[in-house]
């Protein structure tokens, strides 16, 4: 692990933080009708895909209709969860004061209740990004994804857990908020999660009710086909969301941090940690849309409450600032990042760091070491 504090001199960190703040201010001042029109348009596309998908499954006896139905429904769920739900619930559109775009009121088409997720994601993950023992998204309490996580024979199953999590991702996201791992260790009590569990039960029964009971029943004799179609759409969305999210923080060159090195962090240092702890994925406009612009994970972690459609526009500027300060800007195509994550998951199933040799810190601490010498 490279020392977070050693990357830049204090003066540089401050300048760097100011540049980021200025960039943010420029975007915030420019927000307006076009941003609202954009998200309303995505919502319109998502709802149309949803209705078409459901309708096509009524003709599910005809294989092309079934396949098209599953495709439309999968896309609908992906757009709903990624570009709409995730981003709206980050408060990216709270400035519009439209209740339908309010982070506190929005609910998404997945079993995890919005309220539970907002806490663990917006607060815990985005505040303590990649800090071991604090960011509960590091391995989700199930996987060993960082060499600094202590090995245990349980982790021999690492690759299997990852595959299961990928297929069941919406349930994983939901159960994540019960903090099983910490309850088992005795750090939290089961009873503390009564409210959280109640919300899960309510939300999950509604989701299961529509996807696996009501819509299948409505299609009469086609019920099994509809159920299979809905389940497939949920799985497609699960695999997609898992892939995008795991590529955001876990490719090999992304860094993690300790509680000590992030104590009393300044704004500039916080920005710095977000850049070092995140990775982008390259791709075209459609890919960015379907990833909820989480393909711009770096920009998202710097400015989680700025409308995501702005990330591709500011990415060149963020990258230029990173270059100016000699900071890495992790990015790569989906297949490369996915392979990197998969390799890591397999390697870390075994004891040891999983690294051939620790990467050299790419920036200033070398110079500073020289100075010290």
């Amino acid at each position, binding site marked *: 692990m490279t020392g977070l504090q050693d990357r830049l001199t204090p003066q540089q960190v401050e300048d760097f933080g100011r540049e980021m703040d200025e960039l943010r201010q420029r975007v915030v001042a420019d*927000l*307006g*009708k076009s941003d609202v029109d954009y998200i309303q348009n995505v919502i319109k596309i998502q*709802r149309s895909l949803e209705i078409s998908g459901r309708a096509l499954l009524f003709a599910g006896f005809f294989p092309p209709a079934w396949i098209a139905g599953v495709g439309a429904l999968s896309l609908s769920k992906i757009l709903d969860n990624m570009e709409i739900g995730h981003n709206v619930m980050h408060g990216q559109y709270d400035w519009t*004061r*439209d209740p339908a775009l309010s982070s506190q009121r929005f609910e998404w088409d997945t079993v995890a209740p919005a309220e539970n997720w907002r806490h663990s994601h917006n607060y815990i993950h985005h505040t303590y990004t990649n800090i071991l023992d604090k960011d509960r998204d590091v391995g989700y309490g199930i996987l060993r994804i960082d060499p600094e996580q202590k090995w245990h024979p349980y982790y021999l199953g690492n690759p299997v857990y990852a595959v299961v999590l990928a297929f069941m991702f919406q349930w994983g996201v939901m159960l994540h908020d019960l903090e099983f791992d910490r309850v088992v260790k005795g750090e939290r009590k089961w009873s503390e999660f009564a409210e959280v569990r109640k919300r899960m039960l309510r939300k999950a029964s*509604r*989701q299961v009710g529509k996807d696996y009971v009501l819509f299948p029943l409505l299609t009469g004799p086609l019920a099994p086909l509809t159920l299979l179609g809905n389940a497939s759409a949920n799985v497609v969305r699960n695999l997609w969301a898992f892939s995008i999210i795991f590529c955001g923080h876990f490719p090999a060159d992304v860094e993690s941090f300790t509680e000590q090195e992030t104590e009393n962090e300044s704004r500039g240092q916080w920005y710095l940690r977000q850049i070092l702890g995140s990775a982008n994925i390259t791709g075209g406009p459609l890919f960015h849309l379907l990833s909820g612009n989480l393909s711009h994970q770096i920009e998202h972690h710097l400015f989680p409450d700025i409308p995501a459609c702005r990330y591709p526009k500011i990415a060149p500027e963020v990258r230029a600032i990173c270059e100016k300060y000699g900071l890495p800007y992790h990015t790569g195509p989906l297949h490369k990042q996915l392979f990197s994550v998969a390799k890591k998951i397999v390697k870390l199933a075994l004891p040891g760091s999983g690294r051939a040799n620790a990467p050299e810190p790419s920036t200033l601490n070398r110079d500073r070491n020289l100075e010290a010498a």
Partner: protein
Amino acid sequence: MGRLAALAGTLLTPHGIDRYLELIDPMLVREEIRAEVTEVCRQTPGTVTLTLRPSRAWPGFTAGQYVRVSVDINGVRRTRCYSPAGSAHRPGRLELTIRAHDHGLVSRYLHRAARQGLVLGLSRPEGGFTLPDPRPEKLLLISGGSGITPVLSMLRTLADEDHRGDVTLLHYAATAADVPYREELERLGARPGTRVVLAHTRGGAGRLRGRFGERHLKEAAPWYRDARTYLCGPEPLRDAVAELYADAGLSERLHTEEFTPPSMRLDTSDASGRVRFTRSGTEAANTGRPLLEQAEAAGLNPEHGCRMGICFSCTQVKAKGAVRDVRSGEVSDDENEEIQLCISVPVGDVEIDC
């Protein structure tokens, strides 16, 4: 239909049926209240009169009440309170007359840009500035400027009821050209028992001249001591009427709609302490402005409506600290107390659960 809608709601969870219906037509919504502008008329240079067709969830209103009206301006939803001016007995129709204030973002926008087909958001009607049932034998309505709307609604409602008691509307405006509904007021004033008295503070076309005083009152409604009086207008008029009624021992018979904002006598020079918005984890130095403005300056968007302390939309829990009510100057330091953000100024450190 109800059962079908409930099934549709279950199938369309978690977004609900309105979020799909509105994609076909924004006025199809079942639960949300909206209204479509069907007619736009600019009766006087500074005002615009909108005729609205409300969506199916609109419950109707009682004359004198107000609604919170929302409109999107450059992507941001803005909400203000307006009293419908029409009769309460015309379901499916709503009329708003809005004066464009010099610094009024919403009123100027509506005055400039309102057109047929524009869809506005509406709240349920609110407010207790309403006539008792059965109607009083003698009624005096006093209004000034755009404060005419709730009392005009009362007058039109009474006309629809064919009310025969004594009713006088005493209305103040700068000049005759500033009075909307002039022809209709004339017609209403010709009804048996009803009188409409126009007073002009600048210009002589009206029956009365100058500002409100006992002379006007005696001229317009000599029986005012036996009447119920309903008052809506700018602060100087409200103060003058309230003072006269207090001196005459009639305060109990006077009902006031504080529709125009109270002048906020803010002294920001001695503002001290910090304001913490606990739910969002935001903190800032107290600027001495109302908490709603401070919250917005901190990037928060608390729900709100009138911004003048009447609609209670911005009520939040103050966990700790003291706040001053800008209208009364009263300071309150109770813990876990509900306050209205728009008219509360922090006195020292304050914690708001917002």
